[in-house]
């Protein structure tokens, strides 16, 4: 795929007089500054800063009679908490911070992709792969912590003990392929949405892409929801055990 540097990255490069140099075989050896080359990471950092600012703003003005802003944030947190509590029976609150943060991060990155001139993090596989890897290590860690290392490895053998030689490798393969499916689903959706809106913009630049972008808004939210929902299901599958 060609590389289209976002307008914001180009603007900042020009404002800050960053050095541009060619990046080997990347983007046909075009001269790009470091911001333009890594503008998906730029978007990720931007999203992180926005989340931190929102959290700090909520924290500072925390009151017993919540204003509209605090109510919105409380709604978001309650939403994630209910989602996690519906799926994980024991200590759901332990998993809310990571899953909620991931949800906000991905949602913001998806929405960045719709704003003209802003870079989008989740339209790049590197960012979604990082998110999926974090979730992968997270639920494996918690599975080992709550079940014990050997019991966690053993629960891949399935319920029928004499089929373990068949089930165990398959389950491990399924576990590893979850990383790929989890990250590619988000990346493909967002990147596909970008490609389609780019094609529509080149065909008819006025008004016609707007319904498509409304759909992109909707799909951005759905995909963020699906990502955290699947993360919750993975965690619940890893930590659940019968007493």
């Amino acid at each position, binding site marked *: 795929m060609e590389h289209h540097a976002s307008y914001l990255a180009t603007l900042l490069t020009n404002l800050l007089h960053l050095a541009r140099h060619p990046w080997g075989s990347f983007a046909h050896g075009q001269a790009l500054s470091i911001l333009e080359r890594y503008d998906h990471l730029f978007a990720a950092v931007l999203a992180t800063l926005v989340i931190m600012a929102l959290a700090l703003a909520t924290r500072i003005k925390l009151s017993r009679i919540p204003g509209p802003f605090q109510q919105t944030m409380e709604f978001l947190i309650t939403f994630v908490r209910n989602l996690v509590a519906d799926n994980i029976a024991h200590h759901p609150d332990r998993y809310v911070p990571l899953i909620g943060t991931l949800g906000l991060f991905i949602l913001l990155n998806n929405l960045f992709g719709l704003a003209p001139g802003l870079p989008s993090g989740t339209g790049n596989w590197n960012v979604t792969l990082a998110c999926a890897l974090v979730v992968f290590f997270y639920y494996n860690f918690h599975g080992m912590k709550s079940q014990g290392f050997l019991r966690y490895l053993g629960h891949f053998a399935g319920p029928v003990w004499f089929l373990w030689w068949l089930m165990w490798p398959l389950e491990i393969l399924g576990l590893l392929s979850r990383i790929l499916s989890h990250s*590619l689903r988000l990346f*493909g*959706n967002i*990147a596909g949405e970008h490609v389609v809106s780019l094609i529509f913009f080149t065909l008819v630049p006025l008004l016609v892409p707007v319904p498509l972008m409304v759909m992109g808004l909707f799909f951005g939210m759905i995909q963020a929801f699906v990502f955290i929902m*699947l993360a919750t*299901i993975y965690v619940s599958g890893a930590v659940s055990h019968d007493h």
Partner: protein
Amino acid sequence: MKKFLTTAFLFTLATFAFAEGTAATVATKSLFEGQFLAHLSLAIAAAGCGLAQGKAVVAACEGIARNPQAAGNIRTTMIIGLALIEALVIYVLVAAFAVK
């Protein structure tokens, strides 16, 4: 349905036959190579995904119509299922991106 599937199958076979035939003869760029094949496979995947998602949504709607109180649970499960079905098309899309 059967006729459609047969036609699709024959068309796929013809595509492969064309691709091999041209690859064997000369190095001229054929229509049935690279990007065209990727886009065709994306169309086939999207058709299958449409059928599957339609079935899923029909089942969910029937479930909600019979028991409106379970709408929340059914909707969540449906969205997860739709995302899993959609993922298959997304794989083809990513593969189509990868084809130069």
